[in-house]
């Protein structure tokens, strides 16, 4: 087996090892993306509101 093939095979435990890393990435990455998007939205909403209120005065 090639070296890269051996790396992905994980000594025959590929399914378990890679699934574990994939789940961790999906959960923590997903939470990061969600938190960041919501953060951007909160900034945009606040700026819109401040502009609206500024115009009304």
């Amino acid at each position: 087996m090639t070296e890269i093939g051996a790396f992905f095979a994980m000594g025959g435990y590929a399914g378990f090892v890679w699934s574990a890393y994939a789940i961790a990435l999906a959960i923590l990455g997903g939470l990061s993306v969600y938190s960041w998007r919501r953060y951007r939205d909160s900034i945009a909403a606040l700026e819109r509101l401040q502009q609206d209120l500024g115009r009304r005065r």
Partner: protein
Amino acid sequence: MINWLANPARFMRLSAKAVPWCSWTAVLVLAVGLFWSLMVAPPDYQQGDTVRIMYVHVPAAWMALSVYLFVAVASAVALVWRHPLAEVAARAAAPIGAAFTFVCLATGSLWGRPMWGTWWVWDARLTSVLILFFLYLGYIALANAFDDPSRGGRAAAVLALVGVVNLPIIKFSVDWWNTLHQPASVMRIGGPRIDISMLAPLLIMALGFTLLFAVLLMVRMRTALNERRAMALRLNAGAIPAPRPGREPVVSANTVVP
């Protein structure tokens, strides 16, 4: 230090600078940690390459416990001193802790199947961590259950404090009861009982997870403070409160459209 930081305006100023720095450090540390865990660290002489699951599983477990402690302490501060930032911090941290707990449970299951021959057993360690996950979910549900956020915050804070009793149960479950789970091998009296070639990537991943927690906590707290500020502006202006950010306004079949 905490008192000095516990001022929303000051927190916003400081975290604006800290978020980019911590983010890039977290990315760097996690990249090094992943490379070390997957490529450099040796396979275990008994467990083979499944031992690599440890580098995600164990730091996630540590985070699950320490984030819960953070939520509990912040809740106590919020209940006793009514600090403006404490409740925001506890609410922001709870979903991060729940995510780490889920990662811990899922990776543990994927490690248990090849090594113990089962995905799950109802033993003390696994069950107490599952209860920790439900405590997180209960906290999140309760914190958002009331229209008046401060009521939900207080109820959730009490739940967080009661749940603290679960933390020593998790930590010492492997000593108090017979369990499939191995006893502590890093945080034990007498020092770690694990080779440096495996301890190093483990600690790097733990540092990476801690940095990730710090970044997510700050970002989520900033989001909450932005949303509160927007709400206050709307109320001051006498406008109708807009739907909460991140959610679409609900138009049901019963809504009368003029």
